[in-house]
């Protein structure tokens, strides 16, 4: 036991990564096997390794605390982020296993999948520019391999996959150029050193900031450049959306959080242009995503647009911070809450809509008409999951506090723009929610919804997320209403980074 503890201490904070690497190593011995028993064994092996990695990630932080070196840093926020990635991985494993277990190359898909989880963890841990750049590049490469492997049987998908991955490739090229400029301003090797230096106001740093901003904008496929993302999700296999939504985008968000300290520096310096630019982009992204979702009848496109809306919420949080509506701690908290809302709502919804499409054979919102009446249990779960989107009610409190202390007539133009963007965005968002719920609980007209069969594993999957969502809603309500309960000694508003 002492030996294990000593070993764990020596490899801190790489315990979870080592476990995942060991799973990759073991899986590689079975890479060529097509036997069903081996495939089942690999699914169990990967699941267990992910669960152990999840546990070790939390355990290593609690037992050994923060860690920082020349290349990496591991603090509470990194621990949470890696936990999110591993949790997403468990969910993506469910999708891959459900839709690709009969594929010849299933074992190889699992190996690439585990490899991309490891790369995602390195993106989060990285501190040094070299590791940061290498890990994000290799992560994009592994996601590309995963997507191309899971879409190998889909007809005429190659052009869409190619178009999609050209964007992140340009993003990493721009990152490379940006890092070269940062190196020119100062020979510091990480963002913290640069933030503490006197070089921050240098023109080259501002140029770097612009280049990083463009790279991240391309990476997230924000409006109006969402075309390749939409086409790939629409045309791709069932698991494509899950890989992109629960791997590609969250890791991008963590990269944004890592580089975000540079942007926040200029916001804190009362720079006028950056907040206004951010607000305009936020406004367009929120509005365009919701209108796009309203105008389409394809479920995949609706969900993709709504996902883009959630991505623009990150921009909204930064905009709110830039105009003083919320403070830094609230912004970090909102970003984290947003990630949780995304994962805990999109995972079950993705599985439900994939199942409907698989059963009815078409990607159309009209196929869900009456589903809530035919399958009442699924309908209730869908309502609970959609309720989690009302987690945005959490914004009411800081906005109210802000409006209380600010005179309406003397409110700045930027703050007014943020509030208008927020209200308009959420109105359109509500329209989308009620549109989908309206279809689900409408009287069944055709027989399409009656064809939808829910398997036991799917019921278990959506029930798990519904229960978690219900617990979350109850906790948030208790916090908002300021009700103290003994066993809830933890207060969300008191959470500090």
């Amino acid at each position: 036991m002492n030996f294990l503890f000593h070993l764990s201490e020596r490899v801190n904070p790489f315990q979870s990564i080592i476990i995942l690497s060991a799973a990759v190593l073991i899986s590689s011995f079975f890479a060529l096997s097509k036997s069903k028993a081996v495939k089942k064994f690999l699914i169990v092996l990967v699941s267990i390794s992910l669960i152990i990695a999840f546990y070790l990630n939390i355990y290593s932080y609690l037992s050994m605390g923060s860690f920082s070196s020349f290349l990496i840093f591991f603090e509470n926020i990194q621990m949470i982020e890696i936990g999110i990635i591993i949790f997403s991985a468990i969910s993506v494993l469910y999708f891959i296993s459900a839709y690709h277990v009969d594929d010849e190359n299933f074992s190889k898909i699992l190996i690439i999948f585990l490899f991309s989880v490891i790369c995602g963890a390195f993106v989060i841990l990285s501190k040094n520019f070299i590791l940061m750049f290498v890990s994000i590049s290799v992560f994009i490469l592994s996601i590309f391999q995963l997507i191309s492997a899971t879409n190998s049987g889909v007809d005429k998908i190659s052009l869409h996959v190619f178009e999609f991955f050209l964007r992140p490739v340009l993003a990493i090229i721009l990152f490379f150029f940006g890092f070269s400029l940062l190196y020119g301003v100062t020979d510091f090797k990480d963002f913290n050193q640069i933030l503490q230096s006197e070089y921050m106001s240098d023109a080259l740093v501002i140029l770097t900031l612009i280049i990083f901003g463009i790279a991240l904008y391309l990476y997230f496929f924000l409006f109006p450049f969402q075309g390749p993302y939409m086409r790939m999700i629409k045309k791709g296999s069932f698991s494509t959306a899950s890989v992109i939504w629960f791997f590609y985008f969250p890791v991008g968000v963590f990269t944004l959080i890592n580089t975000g300290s540079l942007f926040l520096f200029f916001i804190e310096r009362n720079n006028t242009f950056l907040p206004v630019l951010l607000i305009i982009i936020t406004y367009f992204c929120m509005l365009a995503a919701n209108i796009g979702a309203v105008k389409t009848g394809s479920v995949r496109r609706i969900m993709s647009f709504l996902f883009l809306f959630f991505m623009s919420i990150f921009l909204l949080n930064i905009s709110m911070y830039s105009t003083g509506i919320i403070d830094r701690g609230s912004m970090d908290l909102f970003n984290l809450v947003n990630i949780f809302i995304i994962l805990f709502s999109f995972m079950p919804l993705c599985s439900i809509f994939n199942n409907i499409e698989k059963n009815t054979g078409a990607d159309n919102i009209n196929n869900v008409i009456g589903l809530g009446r035919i399958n009442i249990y699924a309908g209730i779960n869908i309502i609970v999951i959609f309720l989690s989107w009302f987690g945005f009610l959490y914004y009411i409190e800081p906005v109210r506090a802000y409006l209380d202390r600010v005179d309406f007539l003397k409110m700045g133009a930027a703050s007014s723009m943020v509030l208008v963007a927020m209200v308009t965005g959420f109105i359109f968002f509500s329209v989308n929610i009620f549109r989908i719920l309206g279809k689900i609980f409408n009287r069944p007209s055709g027989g399409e919804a009656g064809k939808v069969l829910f398997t036991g594993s799917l019921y278990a999957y959506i029930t798990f997320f519904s229960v978690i969502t219900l617990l979350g809603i109850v906790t948030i309500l208790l916090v908002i209403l300021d009700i103290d309960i003994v066993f809830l000694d933890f207060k969300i508003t008191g959470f500090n980074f």
Partner: protein
Amino acid sequence: MGYGNRGEEKMSFQLIIYANLLLLLIGIFGILYSKDIVSIFVSMQLIIISGVMNFLVFSQFLYQRSLWDKIFIILGVTIIYFVMFCLVYYLYLNKDELSRETLYNNFKFFKIKKSDWWGEDNI
């Protein structure tokens, strides 16, 4: 690179920086303007070269030829080219007639179609 007197050194440094900026702008223009995939890849490579030159120039003139930037260049360029190679190879393996026509004659990196946002996309 030989060192002359102080004035010459400063001038060549500025010249190289301007040349790098020019390369970057040509690369960006190429990505925005080109209609075939080969030109877009070439434009991307111009940006990579511009970044590499930045590293080398800053290292040479400002930081006494440090090792850190060389490691960054080797790792960075290798990975970027590897990703690009994988993309090209994937396309080469799966390319059909329609894709070939699109890629060589009618491919815009930032093509924005109405169907990407408004209504349905019948692909």
